[in-house]
């Protein structure tokens, strides 16, 4: 996959005594949205700056389509990036902000109007960018990233400052971009923002990758140890039946049991077969947020990615090895 998307390998970078990147490594494949998640200070933005050749890593490589950013010609036609929506000159009109970027890549003015349309800024394109809200600036930044029609898109916290309508729009846009076969990397410190968008996540903490997995597997793993709440008229009998089936049921209040080790479907099947009446079976579906919180908590309690080693999947063939 080295020729398509982004490949980050073993990045190390120190700022004085602090290691901002400590063996960061992952890949961003085409045709899907990859979430880049981690708490503030985990190294997401630093990684993105290194990918764009803005910061130099002490060690390691970051390649776009197999090439370092600084060797790309017309780089914005290879990778479109939104790092900081506030990075614009306030007195310059929005359209002109895109126009100079287009000029720098040999892109025509017509394309500028196309991307302005696509991000929904057509009516305000002639206004000074300094008067834009954060949400509008995000849209302008996204337009800049789209300008070169690149195969890779990389955005740092693009949901920040967006209203609910904007968030829904952006999720749709990101899915559509991935659907066009592009590699899309979206960073966020809120996993929930990526719930319906990302199909793959790279979870980072303390400058390295904690988990690199598909969202489905991450949820399954998080749910695997989940508990089911059972309401039954005869809780002792139910507990005996479920214990014999391999589960563990502990009282959780009058007429209520908390069951672990069995899925809700298994519980229903066993109780029905033994004729034990019950009134409610409620499975706690793990959210992406739950999974993420567990992972990042683990990452602070245990060092390295070993705590979630079992969840690593095909997305990152080499990831985490340095950790």
């Amino acid at each position: 996959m080295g020729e398509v998307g982004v490949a980050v390998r073993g990045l190390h970078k120190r700022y004085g005594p602090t290691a901002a990147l400590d063996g960061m490594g992952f890949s961003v494949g085409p045709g899907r949205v990859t979430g880049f998640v981690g708490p503030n200070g985990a190294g997401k933005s630093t990684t993105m700056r290194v990918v764009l050749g803005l910061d130099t890593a002490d060690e390691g490589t970051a390649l776009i389509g197999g090439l370092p950013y600084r060797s790309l010609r017309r780089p914005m036609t290879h990778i479109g990036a939104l790092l900081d929506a506030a990075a614009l000159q306030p007195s310059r009109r929005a359209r002109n902000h895109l126009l100079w970027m287009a000029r720098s890549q040999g892109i025509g003015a017509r394309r500028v109007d196309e991307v302005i349309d696509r991000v929904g800024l057509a009516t305000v394109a002639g206004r000074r960018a300094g008067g834009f809200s954060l949400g509008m600036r995000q849209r302008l930044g996204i337009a800049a990233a789209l300008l070169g029609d690149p195969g890779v898109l990389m955005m740092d916290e693009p949901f920040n400052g967006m209203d609910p309508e904007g968030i829904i729009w952006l999720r749709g846009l990101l899915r559509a971009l991935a659907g066009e076969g592009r590699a899309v990397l979206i960073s966020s410190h809120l996993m929930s923002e990526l719930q319906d968008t990302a199909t793959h996540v790279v979870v980072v903490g303390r400058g390295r990758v904690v988990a690199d997995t598909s969202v489905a597997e991450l949820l399954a793993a998080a749910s695997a140890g989940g508990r089911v709440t059972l309401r039954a008229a005869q809780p002792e009998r139910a507990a005996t039946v479920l214990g014999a089936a391999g589960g563990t049921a502990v009282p959780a209040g009058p007429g209520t049991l908390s069951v672990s080790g069995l899925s809700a479907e298994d519980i229903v099947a066993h109780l029905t077969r033994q004729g034990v009446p019950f009134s409610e079976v409620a499975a706690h579906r793990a959210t992406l947020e739950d999974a993420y919180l567990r992972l990042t908590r683990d990452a602070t309690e245990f060092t390295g990615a070993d705590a979630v080693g079992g969840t690593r999947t095909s997305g990152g063939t080499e990831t985490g090895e340095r950790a």
Partner: protein
Amino acid sequence: MNDFLLTVRAEWTKLRTVRGWVLALVVALVVPVVIGLTSVNGSRSGGCPGAEVCGPPTGPGGEAVTDAFTFVHRSLGPHGSLTARITGLTGQRPRIPGSGGGGAPVPQAWAKAGVMVKEDTEQGAAYAAVMVTGGHGVRMQSDFTHDTAAPKAGTSSTAASSAGAHSDAASAAAPPTAAAPRWLRLTRAGSTLTGATSPDGTHWTTIGTATLPGLPATAQAGLFTTSPEHTEVDRHALGESATSGPTRATATFDRVTLSGAATANSTESGGLWRTTVIGADPVTAAFSASSQRSTPAGESFTVSGSGDIAPAVGGRAFGARSVEDGLVGTFAGLLVLVVVGSSFVTAEYRRGLIRGTLAAQPRRGRLLAAKALVVAAAAFAVGLVAAALSLKLTASRLHAKGVYVLPAATGAEVRVVVGTALLLALAAVLALGAGILLRRGAGAVTAVAAAVVLPYILAISGALPVAGADWVLRVTPAAAFAVQQTTVRYSQVAGVYAPSDGYFPLAPWAGMAVLCGWTVLVVGAAYAVLRRRDA
């Protein structure tokens, strides 16, 4: 398109799409012109009657000249020569209040006496002359700007034989005396004049030749004496001031022989010598005199004169202005362009936009070059228009007011305008480099203003003593203002060549080279930093 050109185009788009920068460029164009025009508003005409513009005479080369001397002359045909022996050159200067002058009969160093062939007796007419001077030895000069010293061998042969080798240099430069007279000869062959000198009238040394194109068949040949103003420079705490006064020189000539006189009857030559005080004004006229007597060995004369035969220097002294006076507002335009140049990059650092810029062009050297090219081109264009307008508008304003403007060659005017534009372009690039190094607009502007504008203003305002001003205009980037100088410094003309009079210590392009050096240094450092630094 080449990616460097794309980046240049992008940077140009950036510059033209920020209204503040566009306005600043307009201001940088208009303000210097306004300042230039305002500065000449106070000028008055040099006291010429009526509305007529008057000023110093101009020489054959078009330059303003001083042409004032006592001339004892005859008509000379197309071929002939004039020989004379000078047996003394003495000086006299009037008492200047507060100075001890007046007494000793020592001539001014550039007091001149000798033989001359001149087109006619009009001021500024073409001439060639061989002369002794008060302190610069024997020389041949022609058409005001040409000056050749006599070869050492020719002047020192008697000194070596009579006074010994140790006094060689001193006697070579010293004026002649009765004990050590000096022979001078000027030979005309058509329009070519050859000067020669001899210690004894027998052994002649050629000094040089001068070609005076268009010298009429009948020219004036004769003896002349003149002596320039004496200047006392008074140093005080806040600078220097100069006091000047006229002086007089008196030369004695004998053994005067003229061959090839235009009049047929040369035996009556004695009666044909006429005395003309060229460029007479009340002061020099009072100082001029001539007397003549005939001896068997030839004619003998005593000629006194005051004035100078030289290109005009220190034009402001006689109420004239030089063309570059209209450019006094350059520094204001420069300041504005320095602000544009530095903020062209510091504005990006301030907002983090530099990351977007470097993402668009990750080759940082090319980015720096593109930015430099764009600010330099903008500043150059603005400077070119502003300088050309300033020059033309102030010149016509001065003309309308009857103020004389010292003529400058077209080439010099072009050099001043192009040089001013280049000065502004380099200063803007210097500011860009400082902006990259400091990443702060205020700091960069302050640094460049302190390096370029401050020394210039201190030097030309006369706030610094001449030596200090000269030093500052040699080593700081302000040296480049020398490119605006059209007045010429002549080593053969005594004068106060101070920056406050428009005389820079370095030649125009040498001054520009100093600014170039600084710009290369700062931009080089900026490149090194930009390349290594995380954006």
